[in-house]
């Protein structure tokens, strides 16, 4: 572990045509001291990685449905295998939509109830122990922005109870005080869901953007804890991490 600390971990960020938060994720990874590589969607294999990020954006222009075309990109097969072998996969915003479309996470992301794109900082609370959340205090409101038009999480009742039972609901929208009030739900998501993980807890999808609040200069640095959590879990503690 000692030798790995100096490298800060190996992070891959997938670039689809239309990805637009890829460089933002690279920037955060590098600030954490990780070695970050961009992975072109036409690749069919992945390098050795501690964390793979599917970034936000508008892959394939959101044509048809957000994430619906990106799931057929050549790299997706390799990502499914990486996840199956226990690799850590983080999908942010459009990345979450793609993870749902490819079936690594259950449910669907529908248009916001306002039918409008929404970009604003709101509050979420971490509700489950996962490798991605170990640096957060569970239940404490975390300020984090969203920026999406299709973030209204939906799943059927049977899947929802399974998600609850397995503690796969990782983030929920809440008020500044941490309450689950309808005014805190920005997009109509079922049960205030902002992010979920798979049963094995190595694949996380979330609509809010942690990479946008990873630096005090930009208005908040709570988001960095998500990246430092997962990198420390793989044996790498980022330079800005800390527990």
């Amino acid at each position, binding site marked *: 572990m000692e030798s790995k600390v100096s490298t800060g971990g190996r992070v891959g960020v997938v670039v689809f*045509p*239309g990805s*637009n*938060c890829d*460089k*933002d994720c690279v*920037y*955060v990874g590098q600030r954490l001291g990780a070695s970050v590589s961009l992975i*072109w969607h*036409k690749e069919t294999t992945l390098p050795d990685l501690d964390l793979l990020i599917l970034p*936000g*954006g*508008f892959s*394939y*222009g*959101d*044509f048809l449905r957000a994430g619906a075309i990106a799931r057929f990109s050549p790299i997706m097969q390799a990502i499914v295998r990486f996840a199956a072998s226990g690799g850590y996969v983080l999908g942010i915003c459009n990345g979450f939509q793609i993870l749902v479309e490819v079936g690594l996470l259950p449910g669907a992301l529908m248009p916001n109830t306002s039918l*409008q*794109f*929404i*970009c*604003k*900082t709101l509050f979420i609370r971490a509700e489950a122990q996962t490798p991605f959340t170990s640096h957060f205090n569970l239940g404490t409101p975390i300020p984090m*922005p969203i*920026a999406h*038009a299709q973030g209204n999480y939906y799943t059927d009742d049977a899947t929802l109870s399974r998600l609850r039972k397995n503690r796969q609901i990782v983030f929920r929208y809440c008020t500044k005080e941490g309450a689950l009030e309808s005014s805190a739900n920005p997009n109509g998501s079922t049960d205030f869901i902002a992010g979920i993980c798979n049963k094995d807890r190595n694949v996380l999808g979330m609509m809010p*953007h942690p*990479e*946008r609040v*990873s*630096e005090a*200069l*930009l*208005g908040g640095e709570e988001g960095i804890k998500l990246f430092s959590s997962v990198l420390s879990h793989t044996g790498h503690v980022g330079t800005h991490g800390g527990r």
Partner: protein
Amino acid sequence: MAGAKLTPSECQQVASLLGREPNALEFELFVAMWSEHCSYKSSKVYLKQLPHEGQWTVPSKGENAGVVDIGDGWVAVFKMESHNHPSFIEPYQGAATGVGGILRDIFTMGAQPIALLNSLRFGPIGDSDSKRAAYPLETRNRYLMERVVAGIAGYGNCVGVPTVGGDIAFDDCYTRNPLVNVFCIGIARANQIVTGKASGVGNPVIYVGSKTGRDGVGGASMASAELGQKDKDRHTVQVGDPFTEKRLIEACMEFVSTGCLVGMQDMGAAGLTSASSEMAARGGVGITLDLSRVPVREEGMTPIEKMISESQERMLLVVDKGSESLFSNICEKWDLPMAIIGEVTDDLMLSLWDNRQKIAAVPIAALTSEAPVYDTTQRPAAPPRYQDHLQILHTDAIVEPKSYGDALLTLLASNDLTCRQWIYEQYDWMVGTNTVLGPGHATADAAVVRVKDTDVFLAVTVDGNGRYCLLNPYQGGSIAVAEAARNLACVGATPIGLTDCLNFGNPEHKETMWQFSACVSGIAEACRQFDIPAVSGNVSFYNETHGLGIYPTPMIGMVGILKTPPITAGFKTPGDLVILIGETYDEIGGSIYLKMIHHQERGEAPNLNFKWEVALQKAVRTAGAQGLLQSAHDCSEGGLAVTLAECCLSSNASLGADLTVDTKGIRGDFFLFGESQSRVIVTLNTYHLPALQRLMEAEGLSYRILGTVGGDHLTLQLTGGDGALRLPVSALRTAYKKGLGP
């Protein structure tokens, strides 16, 4: 579409330049290139007044956008453009393609776009809670606003360039002529700036991007005439595809890094015609094109359609001969159509071929430098007959409001001043992780983005007040520049350049040309006084429908530089001193107060004293740099009262203030709501007062200590007259939060 084609004398001029009658294709090339939109034939003589060079500028004559040096080997490139006519005909696509077009002006120069802003004007949209069905025009205006905002959001969000700020206002004059002005700023390494120049005889000319369709055929000439039957013009509006634009941005950045790119220009107004002839003109060469090789969307497109189509997301490149495969590989990677359609020649001609058949041959100069320029003798200028009448204001007949507080709440809830959250939440203003001050952050007088890997912050603002320009176009033009610069000073930034977007009525009317001439003179004088170059610009005439024109509305986009985190507008700490810098005069003409409370848009525009304005901005910047200030906010629309209310509203803790001021005999409502220029509200810790006083005295500026920050009320006691303003901050917030949503 009166005025869309060439005049009889222009036709004669074409024939004499060619030495023969043009064929149909050649004629259309002239129509497109000599249109007002491309040639600036009515405005060129006036625009010469504007200083284009300053301390920070990098020479870039005739380029797509202006270039300024921001240090550390980086440059910033910025420009503002109008998309008014298309946005009235089809608001979503009109606005979306406006964003697409301005982005291309930036990345065609090799710069990575890092921020967008917009400045919008619409007719009145009514109150969201009123019964709008009774006012069909208001319903229509609201529809236009909603679709324009959606179009800007749809395009900007998808390409991943944050929309970090903007400006919106409403007036009857914009009902049939809404204004959609979009500003973009990008950054590049100084040595990687790409010019829109063709050179190197034999070098290939490459077409990259969307295939050419029939959309937007004749857009440049449409924008150069008054709008008539709108359905007839609908086909002239282009359809935007931000997904292609995003890939085009990425590909262009990769083109630059090949080192083999000679020149690049986007196919904007007048499409392939302007891109090819302008590139050839700048390089002093000719270009030959085989139109049969142009990628097309549909069968049977004629050479004319291919030459003047304004299909979006297309670029024209000249590259080093032999490097073609580097470019085709990049296009293949990004799945972008690409074709080698011609080459650079030495004959100074634009030669068009259809396979082996030569179909047009026109001297490049005839299309570009020899386009007609009209001077004032051809475009007479005279003030409107109503001008003197407009400036008459019988102040005795203006009844003082029963309550200053109620008047303030009415203003805060008015569409011109209310919270813009409904708009900016539809824009991704954070993508790129550079937005240090955006619309959802603390309120400030300008948006601020950082430049990664440097210690540079860029502050950007867009400003323009049509009402002032109507009353006094010269003064209004100067004030637009002064206010933009003042906004930058308030966040702590030094202006390094501006871009102008000049929106006017029909230039064939002498009144419009008088307004235009005076406005440009006012802007030019302000540029000289503040030492700020106008590095790029755009003119939009014919914002006139059925003979009703808009107010002269020049918009100024200004960029400033700062090295320390910016200063914001909100009150910070109880006990801080509240200081009004600058003098308040008995000036109520042209104010939002007169418009909203008394339904009058008249009187004299506020006076502007350059000496005091320059001194004020310098002092505020210095005070900010010395760390003396807790907050700074300029007094603009709504005057002192609205400025103080905004300081309370943007305070994190909803802090009020307890203040007293001597009106020195000025009527209470005029003192509170008048819009005297060169004023800023600052707050600071008492400890720093002596240092600030020294600064004020050194600059000879007047200032008044009004009181202190604190409590949950905004109280302003007027002495020297009588009366007071006293409102809980919560009431200010309720009024302000009314918003623009449906």
